[in-house]
């Protein structure tokens, strides 16, 4: 069962992630009075990309490795999650620090891919992406660490359970910070600064096409799903039904709900500049530090 749990994690995220992009595109289209593509369109897009030529603009191993590493480390991150609140076979090998660093590793691979393409647009995107990672990672880290400090354990099931302790004021503050940061976590407007299609042409992904780009797209979708999952698996994990199937259904529903919110906000807000965003992230860091402070003092 403990091994199966890892596969359930992988399958859950692999299957759900493209669908959520479909949800996002549909809602965005509706907000903009368009019809929008069918919900399964992202699956078709992935298949289409896989069959395209793989264009390579840089003759080095870093360029080829980057999409693989980005995808693999993101999957590794979701593999160690306690999806059903229970330990899996990897829970005794990895704790929340591994999770945080795996997420960083995935972002880092995108950067290296962008830089190794040699394209200045890619480098601009990489620079912005790195600044975003620097300013946002603390918010994610503090969300989970608050739980870890409450429960006195760094192991993921314990820490995520700690995230959901609703009797304290710090819970609500951290939840608010998490929701305020969500749009940036999933890099949608107004925080899609690293990609910024009309400005720097998808930034880090500019030189990638075909199967390599499919991997990056998939990685981005899984990343978004993970951050949305954190609401269901972290903050609201006290709602969790005992039955695995019902639990996954509930989590999926919550994630879809959150994606609806993300899409509406994304479709109605213009993009920030990076310097404005940095200030916003700094505010979030201060607020989450405050939440951790309150949590440590038992409030």
């Amino acid at each position, binding site marked *: 069962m403990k091994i199966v749990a890892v596969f359930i994690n992988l399958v859950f995220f692999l299957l759900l992630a493209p669908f959520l992009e479909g949800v996002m595109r549909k809602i965005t289209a509706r907000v903009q009075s368009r019809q929008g593509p069918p919900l399964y369109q992202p699956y078709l897009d992935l298949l289409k990309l*896989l*069959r395209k*030529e*793989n*264009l*390579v*603009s840089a003759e*080095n*191993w*870093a*360029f080829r490795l980057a*999409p*693989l*590493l980005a*995808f*693999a*480390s993101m*999957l*590794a991150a979701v*593999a160690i999650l306690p999806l059903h609140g229970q330990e899996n076979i*990897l829970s*005794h*090998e990895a*704790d929340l*620090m591994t999770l*945080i*660093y795996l997420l*960083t*590793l995935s972002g*880092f691979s995108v950067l*290296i891919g962008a*830089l*190794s393409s*040699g*394209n*200045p*647009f890619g*480098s*601009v995107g*990489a*620079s912005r992406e*790195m*600044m975003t990672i*620097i*300013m946002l990672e*603390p918010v994610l*880290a503090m969300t989970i*660490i608050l739980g870890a*400090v409450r429960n*006195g354990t*760094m*192991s993921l099931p314990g820490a995520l359970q700690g995230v959901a302790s609703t009797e304290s004021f710090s819970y609500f503050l951290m939840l608010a910070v998490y929701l305020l940061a969500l749009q940036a976590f999933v890099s949608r407007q107004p925080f899609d600064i690293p990609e910024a299609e009309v400005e720097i042409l998808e930034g880090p992904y500019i*030189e990638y096409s*075909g*199967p390599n780009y499919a991997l990056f797209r998939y990685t981005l979708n899984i990343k978004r799903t993970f951050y949305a999952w954190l609401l269901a698996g972290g903050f609201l994990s006290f709602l969790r039904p005992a039955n695995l199937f019902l639990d996954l259904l509930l989590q999926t529903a919550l994630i879809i709900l959150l994606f609806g919110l993300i899409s509406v906000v994304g479709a109605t807000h213009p993009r920030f500049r990076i*310097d404005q965003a*940095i200030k916003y992230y*700094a505010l979030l860091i201060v607020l989450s530090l405050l939440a*951790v402070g309150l949590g*440590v003092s038992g409030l």
Partner: protein
Amino acid sequence: MAPVWIFWLSLLLLVVSSLLSLIFKKNDRLTRWSGTGLVSLSSLLLIWLAVQVLWRLHHPLEFEINFCALKIPVLIDGLSSLFLMLLAVLTLSSTVFSAGFNQEVRPVSNWKFYLVFPWFIAGLVGLLTVDDLGPGFTVAWQIMAWSSYLLVRWGRPAKLSSRPALVYLLFMQAAWLMVVGAPFLVKGYKFGEPLMEIGQKLAEGRQLPSLLFFALLLLGFGLKTGVFPLGQLWIPKTYSTANPSVSALLAGILEKTGVFGLVRVFFFLSNGTSANFSPAGWGKVLLIAGTLTLFIGTVQAIKQSEYLKLLAYSSIGQVGYIIFALGGSLLAASSGTAAGQSLALVIFVGAVYHSLNHGIFKSLLFLTGGNLLYSTGTRDLNRLGGLLAVMPATGLLVALASYSIAGMPGSSGFVSKWLMISGNFLAGRDNLLMVVSGIIALFTAAFTLACYVKFFGLAFTSAGANWKLNRKVREVPAPMLGAGIFLALVCLSQAFLPMAYVRLIGLSMSRSQGFMLADAGQSYLSGSLFNLKIFAGQQLLAAVSPLIILVLIVALIILARAFRQSAGTVEVPVPTWLCGYQDLNRDNVYADRNMFSDLRKFFWWTGGNSHRVVDDEAVETGQVKTEVGS
């Protein structure tokens, strides 16, 4: 052979190698060969000595040197042995590296380098083995200070190096004054007493003098280690001025002798002076100093365009982690509970582990920085780019070292940071200071990552070197690569055999007398050879397993690769796409000065903002007329 004789023999070899360079002065090749050979032999002997003390002797090696009227107590215990091993490994790689590097790049004639270099090593050996704060310490310190002064002075043309070298020497002398002066505050202190006796007298004395005593030692050793704001005064300029093989030792081990001093003072000397030493108070001081150091040092590193300076600032940041953990350990120990004591030991092991790790990967980074300097002749990241194609081996070494220092999963830096930070969170769950500093330490790792993405990304990937450099770049010769590969292997072992190193640190502590946490009770730390776990009873508190994570990632990479190939598409090489207006050329590549510009602006208040990079050739061609200030 008796361990004492090994000790003397290794020192003798160093002296002989220094003298030989005077004799072989005229013959460049002979100087290099004899210097490299004898210094390497001496470092092998030092490793043997450490092995003897750790596994054979079962007790510290103590003896006294009587020289004229001077009595110098020498103590080689587990802690010394551990740092001697690090010194020996780094010396070995640095000398081999120099053999290649000095062949081509030489601001100073070779015999001068090999005249002084062995003394530098001897001074470091002395610092790690003498057991007083008087004559022995003075002799070792002065040998170390003057020899490294000369090495820094000779690292670059005089116009660029004379001031940094002088500043370095002055700060070393200031640190020496503070360390040697401190024990005079202790009532009844006789110049040249062993540390243990100073400790006993401290316990009998009054509170204020002992407070000042510890403060002076913290300042003295802190200056050497690079605690904020003291480190910023000399480290960046010194490390970027010296020959990279010397910088590798400066950052790898000279800095760590400061850590060694701090450990000796705050975890050994302080033991037994209970009334006059407050672990909680000093723990807080170290924790705050360390957190400031690690944050500011790393943020300053991001701003540097000169890669040797980037490495220098980043070593301030990394040492900050060690100080932070030493403070956290003292604080956890001061809680008085059994759990607190056990976790204090976990954090302490993390600090020592990080010292070893940082010694290795920072040396590797400086050596590979030397490779870059050797091949490209520039220190400016703005002028590099795309070197992976021409220097693949160096690129791979830099990638490994960068990956490790950024503490990514499955690296040595990850294990030691995990020990320090997890321990800190677990021990300080109701201590706001510990939690907040732990969080700062955790996310400073992202800044470290940014530094090294910049270093690796802009030097090796990206593009630009083929337009901006006026020479053909080649991979470096074998000795230089060999030294790097050797360090890389050690670095990998530190990543994937964490338990072996934890046991080694445990063993060295059990071979040292007077360790404060010696009776910390049953250790929380357990695990097999390949992983580490923190248990409280049956409950798993934290776990790290670099090998399993690596296997997981590799398996998933294979899956991703199968996915990528699933439709059987082919790779098609294409030129870089710049919206169809033009091709990539020297006018539109991304330069280092643009990287993270908004973040640099946001953190301007942390200092270290200078951008100007001056290459040696600019001095030779007369572009730099006056001495370059900050």
